[in-house]
């Protein structure tokens, strides 16, 4: 008999748990399901009976409008470019930083983690004012590089926070052995430590990508041409059009939200809980 089975659990509580979770699952998933269903319905069906669940005819007309008329592919390109650059730079900076904190400055590191929590406190709207002024000064307004720089402000603290937890699991013995063999600190980092924590780094990188892909406020304030707009801001501008076409908006929403959901499901086990765990350590 397994140890867990010693715990008696009443069927009543378990049934209630299933009912509660099923109810929550329906509520949690409904907007995603509704986006997908609405995106393949025709205009007539959307305007007809709004309570009909499944489309009678599946049409991809909305997606055609999104990509051919609205040129949404360009915005997807912008977002991929910005989010990918943000991820690469942020992970390089954070991996070095988190390793340095864990291995060389553990005492100072504990203080730094507190500082990272404090940066969490800065209202994004507080940073938005100086960012718009500073970016204007350096000619980085309406510039995708400027956006990547600003995105470091939330991605680096977050990534360091999560990565510190992963680096703490690397046994120092392995590193010392490599040092004795004559490798310098950077070589030890690259050749010994990085491969061990690679799965963690990939998870944090994907999380960083999702956050950059989803970001709205800075993109709204710093980018002012539709050519350079990210998906979030391009989506917002669809809503400003005179005639609201919900089918088209849902098709565009599907394009934006599906990558986020899929990537997030892949990494959730690794990221989940790291937030609180990393800060308590």
């Amino acid at each position, binding site marked *: 008999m397994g140890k867990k089975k010693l715990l008696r*659990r009443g069927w009543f*509580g378990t049934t209630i*748990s*299933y009912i*509660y*979770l099923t109810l929550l*699952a329906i509520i949690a*998933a*409904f*907007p995603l399901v*509704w986006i997908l269903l609405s995106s393949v319905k025709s205009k007539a069906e959307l305007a007809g009976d709004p*309570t009909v669940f499944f489309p009678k005819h599946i049409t991809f007309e909305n997606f055609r409008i999104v990509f051919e008329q609205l040129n949404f592919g360009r915005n997807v390109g912008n977002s991929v470019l910005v989010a990918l650059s943000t991820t690469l730079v942020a992970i390089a*900076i*954070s991996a*070095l*930083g*988190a390793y*340095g904190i864990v291995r060389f*400055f553990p005492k100072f590191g504990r203080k730094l983690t507190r500082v990272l929590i*404090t*940066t*969490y*406190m*800065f*209202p*994004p*709207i*507080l*940073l*938005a*004012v*100086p960012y718009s*002024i500073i970016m204007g000064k350096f000619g980085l307004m309406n510039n995708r590089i400027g956006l990547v720089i600003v995105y470091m*402000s939330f991605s*680096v*603290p977050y990534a*360091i926070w999560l990565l510190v937890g992963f680096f703490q699991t690397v046994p120092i013995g392995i590193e010392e052995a490599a040092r004795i063999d004559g490798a310098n*600190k950077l070589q030890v*980092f690259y050749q010994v430590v990085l491969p061990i924590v690679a799965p963690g780094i990939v998870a944090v990188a994907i999380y960083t990508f999702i956050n950059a*892909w*989803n*970001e*709205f406020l800075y993109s709204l*304030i710093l980018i002012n041409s539709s050519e350079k707009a990210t*998906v*979030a801001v391009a*989506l*917002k501008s669809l809503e400003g059009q005179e005639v609201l076409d919900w089918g088209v908006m*849902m098709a565009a*929403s599907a394009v*934006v939200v599906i990558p*986020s*959901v899929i990537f*997030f499901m892949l990494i*959730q086990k690794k990221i*989940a*809980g790291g937030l*609180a765990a990393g*800060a*308590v350590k």
Partner: protein
Amino acid sequence: MKSRHIKAQITSFCFILPALTVLALLLLYPVVTSVFYSFTSKHLIKADYEFVFFKNYIAVLTDPDFWTSFLTNIKWTITSLFFQIVVGFLAALAVDRIRKGKSFFRTILIIPWAFPSIVIALSWKWILNGVSGFLPNILVKMGIVDTVPQFLSSANLAFPVLVMINVWFGAPLIMVNVLSALQTVPRDQYEAAQVDGASPLQSFLHITLPHIRIVMGLLIVLRTIWIFNSFDMIYLITGGGPAGLTQTVPIYAYNVGWGLKMLGRSSAVTVLLLIFLLMVCMLYFRILNKWEKEA
């Protein structure tokens, strides 16, 4: 030998230098700039500005709109946080309890967490749409209401609906963190308690809660700040309306800075916001430190 030691220190320092630079340039420097501009008449477009001392702060603090926003913000934070914790905590306990379908429910329940704010806004606006929205129409069809309810433009409904959307979005994060905190509670303590004849409620109060309260405390700190600062969701769903009923301080700051184009005054608002959050956090951390010492 000594110079070698210093050299080693320098290489070690190089590891954290880029991260420190980011912190200094992108977080510390902007905050200092904000404090500086809050004492000036900085305009969004005009280049020249002058020093106005406390004029911005006086203007903000004597504006009844600011205080209304502040109260709305507190109401928004407390109600959202409360329901996020209740829903998320119960979900964690439920997932922890069941045997089959654990990872299925976990995966489905975190979906809202991955949503970009603009998609949260658009999808809920579409679901709640006063003409062809699914929910208002199904409520009419089921005979629960007579006329199609205007969820986002009615004075009575807009705020609670916004809070519900925020609970939908935020409860998964609470659930996942509580769930991983629950894993750290040693199982044999439950067994021992059961042998001693403790009720499930007693086990929960005397074993589970003391084990996870530090993680919970920290979660509450972080969520309080996040919810207090949240801009996207409110801005995108109601824009602070109807009639300013859902206007929180970040929305107020945005309207002053980008609507009225008074960046200086907007800075004053955000600096006040930061000061308030710092005070709240100091209070929280004092409690947390006490708990950590007891543990």
